[in-house]
């Protein structure tokens, strides 16, 4: 009853249980943080709106993105993954979401930023529905914790539109 094997087993079981409990509490503490992120996106320029050689529309644009995501960081946050997606509807597809740009924010200092960039990923439609198309630009963020449950939310900014003709 008091051999090394029994003692080692009891110690291991207790420490794993205690560790699991601490991880659960750490994750639970994230519920109490007050979060009020803000963001603003402007389209500086529509560089090209063209029809690809094998059919689909593609647009290239330059964005000015400014955001303050500092309030999302708690002591249990490992990183925040933020991305900007263009969301629109066409006659064939009830929803299209195309990610244009993303960033990994490793800590609170980097969470307040302003950047001017062209789209990192190609904005390609399934079809030729982009002329004159109205779309929303949504800033999504995913909070990845050091341990526990992941959390995601977004800010939707409606009212952007593409030119009526190819250019």
């Amino acid at each position, binding site marked *: 009853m008091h051999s090394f*094997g029994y003692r080692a087993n009891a110690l291991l079981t207790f420490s794993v249980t205690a560790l699991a409990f601490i*991880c659960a509490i750490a*994750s639970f503490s994230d519920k109490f943080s007050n979060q009020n992120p803000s963001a603003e996106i402007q389209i500086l320029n529509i560089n090209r709106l063209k029809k690809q050689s094998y059919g689909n529309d593609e647009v290239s644009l330059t964005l000015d993105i400014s955001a303050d995501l500092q309030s999302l960081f708690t002591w249990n946050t*490992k*990183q925040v*993954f933020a*991305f900007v*997606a263009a969301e629109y509807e066409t*006659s*064939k*597809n*009830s*929803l*299209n*979401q*195309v*990610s244009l740009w*993303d960033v*990994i924010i*490793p800590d609170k200092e980097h969470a307040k930023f302003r950047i001017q960039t062209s789209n990192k*990923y190609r904005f390609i439609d*399934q079809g030729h529905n982009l002329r004159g198309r109205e779309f929303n630009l949504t800033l*999504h963020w*995913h909070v*990845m*914790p*050091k*341990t*526990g*449950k*992941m959390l*995601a939310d*977004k800010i939707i900014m409606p009212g952007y539109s593409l030119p009526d003709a190819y250019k």
Partner: protein
Amino acid sequence: MGWMGETIDSIKSIQIRQLLTQAISLGMIVTSALIIWKALMCVTGSESPVVVVLSGSMEPGFKRGDILFLHMSKDPIRAGEIVVFNVDGRDIPIVHRVIKVHERENTGEVDVLTKGDNNYGDDRLLYAEGQQWLHRHHIMGRAVGFLPYVGWVTIIMTEKPIIKYILIGALGLLVITSKD
């Protein structure tokens, strides 16, 4: 040296009834582990409710050796979600983030493109020959939570199987030689 002598003595003095009792106890332990695993599969709605991260393509968020808890619901797949999917013809599941979604109006079917956060390009190179998009049936679950470092045990046992055999051999020896 006295421990070795004791072990040899106890192997010599094994009785059939005791051996059978121990075999049944071992069987009970294995089957209850299996019951817990199957129950987890039911609760999360996913074929593999827990996966181990095997590559560095989602760093710094998920490192090699972390484990992810998955959940699959009928909710539509949206951009930004971290999904686990199987490509036809490969049996290792991949954990990446959805970057593009095109959902059909009438049928609700969806075309999905994924990319690892730490990769330069999207996953089209990983998909099957000629495949441009993932569909709902490729996706096994969404990552909803994670624990760091715990998956290293599985990685070590898969990559150096000798350690697996040593562990199982030692466990078997312990079971046989213990008095209860």
